[in-house]
């Protein structure tokens, strides 16, 4: 029983990591129709921000708080200069964002000399409930993820900004005719997605240590999550990420770990085959 609780906690923590990473990707894919292959590197930049703050004596906390803003600024700059040229051609956008990602990743690799850097948790240690110990930082990630999901949902579903975003998504021409600046809205959406990536990077870097590849290792699973959940909704990618994260953490119990990895893909692709629209097909934002 003890172990089951602990295991459930671990799976939940890993699922939260997946959801955090997928959120930004999902927002950009759903709202703008851009599959952002540089998403992993935006996650990396968030992680790198924490590292820089920690190195320069500002503390890891400062880094965690700064990361979303720094990465949002990077995202905004990217959107204004490069991404906006790709809205008409989503396939080219994939290649373009992939190139951006490659450039960021290799610059960071050079700066790190190819090494890994351990980043301490801003709050380390564990707390005990009924004789069971739980990592404080993993709990913090779970709570933050839930808060971010709730916040995003409220922002998109309950505010006038959300209404405009949804309007621009549904029918850009009509939205523009109504006086909504879709260009500005897209820029903000991209910056928002980037900020989420930055936050994800900042939160996960104490768990995985900083390296140039910290983001890319999750990218394929993140895309799978978006596919599984369905593009065009907010809940879809979140559910998809939860499913993929849960499977990735749970399957090594049942099959040998080397098989678990491909099995996640097989199962997910089978589901996508049966439900090509993803989990969520009604009640789109």
């Amino acid at each position, binding site marked *: 029983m003890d*172990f089951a609780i*602990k*295991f459930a906690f*671990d*799976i939940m923590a*890993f699922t939260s*990591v997946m959801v955090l990473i997928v959120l930004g990707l999902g927002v950009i894919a759903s709202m703008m129709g851009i599959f952002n292959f540089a998403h992993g590197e935006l996650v990396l930049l968030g992680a790198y921000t924490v590292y820089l703050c920690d*190195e*320069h*004596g500002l503390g890891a906390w400062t880094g965690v708080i700064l990361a979303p803003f720094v990465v949002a600024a990077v995202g905004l700059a990217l959107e204004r200069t490069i991404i906006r040229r790709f809205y008409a051609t989503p396939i080219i956008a994939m290649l373009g964002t992939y190139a951006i990602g490659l450039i960021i990743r*290799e*610059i960071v*690799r*050079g*700066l*790190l*000399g*190819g*090494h*890994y*850097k*351990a980043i*301490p*948790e801003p709050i*380390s240690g*564990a707390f005990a409930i009924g004789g069971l*110990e739980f*990592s404080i930082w*993993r709990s913090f990630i779970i709570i933050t993820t839930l808060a971010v999901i709730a916040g995003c949902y409220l922002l998109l579903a309950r505010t006038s900004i959300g209404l405009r975003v949804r309007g621009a998504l549904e029918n850009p021409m009509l939205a523009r005719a109504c006086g909504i600046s879709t260009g500005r809205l897209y820029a903000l959406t991209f910056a928002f997605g980037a900020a989420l990536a930055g936050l994800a990077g900042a939160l996960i870097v*104490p*768990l*995985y*240590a900083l*390296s140039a*590849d*910290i983001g890319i*290792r*999750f990218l394929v699973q993140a895309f799978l999550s978006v596919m599984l959940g369905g593009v065009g909704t907010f809940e879809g990618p979140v559910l998809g990420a939860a499913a993929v994260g849960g499977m*990735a*953490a*749970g399957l*090594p*119990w049942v099959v*040998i*770990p*080397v098989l678990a*990895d491909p099995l996640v893909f097989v199962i997910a692709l089978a589901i996508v085959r049966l439900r090509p629209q993803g989990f969520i097909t009604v009640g789109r934002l």
Partner: protein
Amino acid sequence: MTGPNLGRRGFLSSAAALSAAGWVGSVAGGLVLRPTWAHAAGPIKMGIATDITGAIAPSGNANWQVAQFAVEEINKAGGVLGKPIELYLEDTASDPKIAVGNVRKLIQERHVDVVLGGITSAMRQAIKDPIVNRGKTLYIYPQLYEGQECTKFLYNTGPTPAQQCDRLIPYLIKTLGKKRFAMPSANYVWPQLLNKYARKVIEANGGEVVFEEYYPLDQAEYSATIGKIKDGKVDCVFMTIIPPGLQPFVKQLYEAGFQKNGGVLTCVYYDENLLNYHPAEEMEGLVSCLDYFQAVDDPFSKKLQEGYAKKFPGTKYLFTAGSAATGMYRGVKFYEAAVKATGGKLGREEVAAALDKAVLTEGPGGGAEMVPGHYHAKMNMYIAVCKSDAGKTHYDIIDKASMVDPREC
């Protein structure tokens, strides 16, 4: 580079790191380091084929720097019987496909007398044929590895599974009293063959392997494994996971309270580079076994480190054992000793015959000697335990075994 000042020096070292990472001024065309003086009979041409770019770049750059350092020492002391050594670098780019072409360049265009390098076993397997068979050239492989490499004209200067396990495992079982072993491993050849050997030693010493499991190299989540470690009442984790899958495993093991409850984590490639890979508390008590640690109390090794630090001030690429840098140093010196023994002749057969019984009286961690007919070297092995002081980690040497037999071939 630490500290808040990104001054000129900081900028330069960053720029150097960028160029080392291969995207500023790459070494695509190869690189030659000529000695400052010449000899009528021409120089000895030494080829270095190592991973300057790609995933293994931190180790590869350390190898290249150590080769430069060792060769500079030799040339300063008058060369090998008066002949200077000329260094030729080719980048193997952490990619065996690229490596084969570049290594061929060393042999066919540069006509080197010997090639040193390769870090991963995949790389060794890929480049040994172009060097030894088709290239008819001597090859020296510097990294600790899984053993069983008995190719003629291929000399291994890093430790073998026997050297890393024969002393370490009895220490874990007899001295520390650990009996139940788990072997979580990355899924490739080195862990598989090392585990096979380690399992024999564990069982011969009265220990038991509870499970042996292989993971994709970038696995991010290990709760199932941690569960098996708890369920199986494992008290010693013999780990061969490598980055990037490494850090989440060590963290989850620590969070599960494994060390706190008396468990011992051991891993035989942990050197000084790895001290930065985990937070200090997770490293505390980790047991490693290598041919050299910076904590080894040996005047010659200390002098080497000082010289290296002087040549490469503030470098990111340390002179350590886990990255094959010590094997590289030994390789260069073994070759020097062999050429001295042939009286300056550079023919492959003659040098190989001399190399086969070459002896080094000193080196990182002490001397080393080739075991005649076995292509591997006897060397000192050290068991070290990681200690953390106020958030800073270092190794304490707790055992030294002199001139351990490689037991290969």
